[in-house]
């Protein structure tokens, strides 16, 4: 009897462990992964000479949490000799001179407009099924429960940019 009483008392002293953060963690983790990918895209694309002066602009259109993650992680880091500057855009009119632009799912309806405006200058990244055929250069896809990416090599070639071999090797699909 004494034993069981002591055992019960131990239960009261020590707390249960808890799942840390749960759902919020998932969103943060997804943004961290996307942020790393975006930085790697910047690093692993061969940019022509005309793209290699001034700041290296990574734009985020319509996804504030991703913008926050990226700006805190990558602002002032270097791509070659260029300082990264992460910009956030609320409307299409603000978008200009990005090296890479992430367009959130909610804003993807404006893709055509953005593309026409930034035809030869910007690598457009998004996340939606079939997005490459709509003009994005890189599309995040979910495969085997992981965030992966597919690339539109044809359109990027036309822009005069070259995907590095690592990106080509790791892309889940190439158009």
């Amino acid at each position: 009897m004494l034993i069981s009483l002591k055992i019960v008392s131990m239960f009261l002293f020590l707390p249960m462990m808890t799942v840390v953060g749960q759902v919020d963690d998932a969103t943060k983790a997804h943004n961290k992964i996307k942020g790393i990918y975006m930085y790697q895209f910047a690093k692993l694309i061969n940019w022509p000479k005309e793209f290699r002066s001034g700041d290296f602009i990574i734009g985020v259109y319509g996804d504030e949490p991703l913008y926050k993650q990226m700006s805190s992680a990558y602002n002032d880091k270097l791509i070659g000799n260029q300082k990264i500057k992460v910009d956030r855009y609320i409307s299409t009119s603000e978008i200009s001179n990005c090296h890479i632009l992430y367009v959130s799912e909610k804003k993807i309806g404006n893709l055509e407009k953005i593309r026409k405006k930034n035809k030869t200058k910007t690598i457009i990244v998004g996340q939606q099924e079939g997005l490459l055929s709509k003009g994005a250069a890189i599309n995040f896809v979910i495969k085997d429960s992981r965030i992966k990416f597919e690339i539109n090599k044809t359109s990027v070639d036309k822009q005069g940019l070259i995907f590095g071999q690592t990106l080509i090797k790791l892309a889940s699909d190439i158009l």
Partner: protein
Amino acid sequence: MIAHIKTILIFILFIPIISSGQNKYCIYEFKALKAYDDKDYLTAKAYMDSALVTCFDIKEKAYTWHVLGFIYYDIYKKIDKKDPSSLAREKTIESIKKSLELDTISEFEKLNKKVLVNLAISYWNNSVTHLDTINYEKAISFYNSYVDLYSFANPDYNLEQSEIIFNQELAYIYDKKFLNTQSKNEDYFNQAVKLHKKVLSIDSLNYKSNMALGTLYYNLGVMYIFALEDDIDMFKFIEAQDRAVDNFKISLPYLKTAYQIQPNDKETITGIAGVYHQLHETEKFMTYMNLLEDIKSKDKEKELEPKLNKEEDK
């Protein structure tokens, strides 16, 4: 009055020395008994030491070790004040075990075993008070002493329940050490997992360990991602994402078992939803989030019920 009763009891306890003819008269033993009666336990112990050296054949008597065991027991309780490092506790056990070994007619068995059980409980209590991130190794040692001694005194007693509790709480300590140390030593994580799996080998439907394992693996997966350096090498990054996903997948069956056991537990449902979210399984994530909302609104309804009834009563 109590002192008189104690004196009588002690002499009843020690009658065999004089009346049964088991022993020849041993002056040191007698003096030890007297000192014990006077609550002078250290003197009693010293006389018993002399008795063991000088009095022929008392070493072979269960009674001698029974008396010595009780003297040490009182030293442990009253002089050492139950200090966890008291040597008197170990000496008590040693003496009482010797008495039990020599006690072929079980004359002192009941009293001897009662002392052993009490001391086993004292080890359990020490293990509880030492179970923290600094002293946990001592806690393990005390717990092992508890198990050994309790099993010795009560071989048929089932210690599974205490094993479950101790392993779970120790696992909690290892997890805490894992999460709190900057180096994230995975040995601590592995120890925590091992202990919970041990619990599940005893009771596969133990809610706490299923939930804990699900949580441990989930947290490890999350940690793999959050620990990534922002400019990590691309291949290492892909590997880390794989490891994270593997851990999310391992966590899921444990969380689902926990859910089967406690289907209305909000934390479990949130955990499952979190894993599905990490695995990008949006439909399943939404299913569990909706379930969570249902439970929350039912809880709210329940909270309001008594108030509504009171209003109606008016």
